């Protein structure tokens, strides 16, 4: 049907900027004429509300590259009789998340799942102080996570790794179409650069090697989630980039702005709740095909991708119609396969119940219910209580308190244990007849003798002292058995071609990796 006029409303950012150009166009049109309006998917529900209110009959909707083209017929009702003052009662589209939302476990708090915002706090902590050891999260980070949920975020949790961590974030967000903003805050994670990776993912996506384009992280590989989920993630959420921000008040303000009905200024952003994403949630979990992406070297990528493709073209995605699909599959299965299917399902349910029981036993403080946008209040009673979702705990090795003097000698000896191994390896190589090895050996012997003198003077329990002395004496003997008379430099001779480095010198330097504790006062070398 030929439209008399076309209004491009793809630049609209709110109800006013959507309605004004349309109303202006309609004002110059006669009843019965056809108008074509181009809108973004975000404004589909708002436009429907506007059309209903203004009496435009929607004739056709077509998704095209530049947006959704909606053709409407202008009502024959005189315009002055339209209910101009009535606010647009666009049904703010809120949809339930997928059944198993959040699909991935992790260190996060759950809030109201009709909220349009999720918060990711970067967890810049040493490797190991991460989920599932929730108790080891620095308090200032935990505070940000809590504040976000208390203010009204649907999900709020920490992110450490630029691969598995981001994959979990993607899974949990695409499972809930109501989430339209991702507030990213906290101090950038040293090494992983997960903040920049997440930002780069939203802006650039991934390349054909499943590597986040433009990420500064070392291994920003997303091997375990479907491409569909990544694409959806990019379309579904807008980033509120607060990397480096640790102020709970600012995070709280950002969250609050995200669920306002009208566009609200926050820093450089105009935020408001646009309603749920126009398509159903995607239920997906990590495939586990590559459990340690951090171990993948660049040269292995092709091989890894080939294996992923060979095993399965794509990690499995369960659209929300999965129940229907499963029913159909079950019909086709024979009795034996049905039993097997049911058995697996029961086993899975049993495992989930056990996990749930564990979680309930460990349930932490439940944050007070966050204020909700008007549209959400009806469902507030149904919304689930916030809980910390933890992964299974691991046993924590027990650290015993030791006197600093004892720790000092133990650590030094651990260092020399490495030194001796390196020097002995060099002795079996061309270094044997060279110059650097003997120099490194002599230097090591001197250090060991100095350490021995220190140990003799140290105040330590007799048994500890004797054990340490035995080890130290053993190292001294091994060192003394190595060449101490320098020969010609193997580089000068032309035998050693490794470049400027030297294995023997580097081996002697291994003890320098021991940086703490400081030598106790009064001990030679202290």
């Amino acid at each position, binding site marked *: 049907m030929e439209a008399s006029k076309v209004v491009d409303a793809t630049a609209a950012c709110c109800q006013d900027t959507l309605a004004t150009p349309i109303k202006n166009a309609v004002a110059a049109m006669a009843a019965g004429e056809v108008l074509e309006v181009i809108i973004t998917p975000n404004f589909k529900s708002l436009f429907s509300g506007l059309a209903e209110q203004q009496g435009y009959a929607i004739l056709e909707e077509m998704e095209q590259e530049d947006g959704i083209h909606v053709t409407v017929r202008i009502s024959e009702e005189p315009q002055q009789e339209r209910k101009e003052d009535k606010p647009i009662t666009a049904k703010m589209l809120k949809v339930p998340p997928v059944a198993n939302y959040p699909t991935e476990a992790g260190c996060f708090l759950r809030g109201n799942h009709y909220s349009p915002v999720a918060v990711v706090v970067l967890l810049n902590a040493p490797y190991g102080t991460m989920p599932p050891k929730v108790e080891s999260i620095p308090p200032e980070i935990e505070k940000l996570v809590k504040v976000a949920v208390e203010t009204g975020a649907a999900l709020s949790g920490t992110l450490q790794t630029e691969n598995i961590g981001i994959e979990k974030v993607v899974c949990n967000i695409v499972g809930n179409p109501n989430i339209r903003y991702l507030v990213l805050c906290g101090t950038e994670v040293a090494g992983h650069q997960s903040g920049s990776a997440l930002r780069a993912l939203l802006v650039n996506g991934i390349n054909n090697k499943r590597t986040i384009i433009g990420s500064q992280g070392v291994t920003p590989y997303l091997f375990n989630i479907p491409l569909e989920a990544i694409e959806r993630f990019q379309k579904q959420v807008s980033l509120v980039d607060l990397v480096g921000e640790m102020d709970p008040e600012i995070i709280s303000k950002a969250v609050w702005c995200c669920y306002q009905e009208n566009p609200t200024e926050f820093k450089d952003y105009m935020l408001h709740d646009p309603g749920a994403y126009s398509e159903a949630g995607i239920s997906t979990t990590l495939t586990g095909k590559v459990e340690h992406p951090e171990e993948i070297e660049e040269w292995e990528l092709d091989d890894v991708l080939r294996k992923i493709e060979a095993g399965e073209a794509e990690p499995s995605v369960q659209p929300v119609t999965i129940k229907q699909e499963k029913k159909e599959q079950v019909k086709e299965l024979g009795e034996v396969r049905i039993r097997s299917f049911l058995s697996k399902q029961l086993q899975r349910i049993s495992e989930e119940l056990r996990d749930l029981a564990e979680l309930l036993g460990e349930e932490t403080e439940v944050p007070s219910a966050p204020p909700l946008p008007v549209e959400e209040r009806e469902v507030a009673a149904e919304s689930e209580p916030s809980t910390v979702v933890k992964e299974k705990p691991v046993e924590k090795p027990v650290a015993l308190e030791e006197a600093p003097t004892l720790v000092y000698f133990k*650590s030094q000896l651990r260092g020399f*244990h*490495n030194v001796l191994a390196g020097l002995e*390896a060099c002795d079996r190589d*061309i270094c044997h007849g060279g110059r650097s090895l003997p120099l490194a050996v002599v230097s090591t012997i001197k250090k060991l003798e100095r350490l021995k003198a220190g140990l003799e003077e140290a105040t330590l329990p007799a048994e500890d002292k004797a054990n340490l002395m035995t080890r130290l004496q053993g190292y001294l003997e091994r060192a003394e058995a190595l060449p101490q008379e320098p020969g010609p430099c193997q580089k000068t001779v032309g035998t050693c071609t490794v*470049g400027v480095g030297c294995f023997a010198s580097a081996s002697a330097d291994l003890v320098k*990796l021991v*940086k703490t504790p400081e030598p106790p006062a009064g001990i030679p070398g202290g």
Partner: protein
Amino acid sequence: MEVKYFKNQLRGYNVVLSILTAESEDDLCRGCIGFDGAMTKAKKGLKKLKLDLQDLTAPEEEKESLVAHIEELSQRLEGLPEADAPTCMKTAGLCKIGSDCFPLDGAIAMMKQITT
């Protein structure tokens, strides 16, 4: 790539392997995630070396000798004990040497000595 490249790499891995062997005798390193990571890196490094060797233009005898050396080092590496569930010993409060890590900043970093 020249034969020299492979020989230098193997000299490096020889030192790396000796240090990793020593670390596998250290109660703390053996159960540490750093050691686990270093073992993975060393295994992959040798695997890559073997792959690269296929493109080397050299007398067959020399290539076979290099392959044998790589395989010997790989076997020794595979023979080292590894923990089932390694954990970071610094986080656990057991490794108190400071920020550095013997397996990663010591053993594996030894390969950085090779610059040509």
